């Protein structure tokens, strides 16, 4: 299975003939960094047609180490979740036929 990486996105942007290769690399880095900064500040990121990245607060809870079965307390923390847009979800399922 093929994997799309940042390098490939940089190539695609370079193919637009708008920026130099090194500018493309920096712009793509900045782009993802801005998304990360927004999530870091607790603000969701909504990309219409793609999906929504949400920051969710997890409460402290009791858990277990699945390997040893030893009980432990998992501290409260934040997690990032992704909700796929309806457009993308339909497109992904259409390909299957």
């Amino acid at each position, binding site marked *: 299975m093929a*994997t*799309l990486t940042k390098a490939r996105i940089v190539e695609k942007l370079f193919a637009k003939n708008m920026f130099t290769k090194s500018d493309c690399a920096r712009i793509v880095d900045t782009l993802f960094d801005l*998304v990360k900064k927004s999530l870091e500040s607790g603000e969701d990121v909504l990309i219409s*047609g793609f999906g929504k990245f949400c920051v969710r607060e997890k409460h402290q809870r009791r858990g277990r180490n699945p390997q040893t079965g030893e009980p432990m*307390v*998992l501290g409260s923390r934040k*997690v990032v*979740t992704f909700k796929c847009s309806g457009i*993308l979800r339909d497109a992904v399922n259409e390909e299957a036929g």
Partner: protein
Amino acid sequence: MTKSQLIEALAKAEGITLKAAETAVNVAFNSMEQALIRGDRLEIRGFGSFKVKDYDGYKGRNPKTGELIEVKSKKLPFFKVGKELKERVNGAEVKSTK
């Protein structure tokens, strides 16, 4: 933050026009969409990775009416948060208190 706010922020951070920033944002997310539609994996270091997961169909019930319904099998993009982003949303305090 919405896509248009991301475009504005990118234009400002990189000192490029809004039009140029819009192209960059569209190229990035369009190629991500296309990859997922093809069923490819996608991995952005420090941010996270996506892959399309297959979900089997199952017989469920409408929780309101109790009516039996058939839920068809489906595919959904699944996002796994990257290590750097996971740590950043939690600030410095990445403790696992025992």
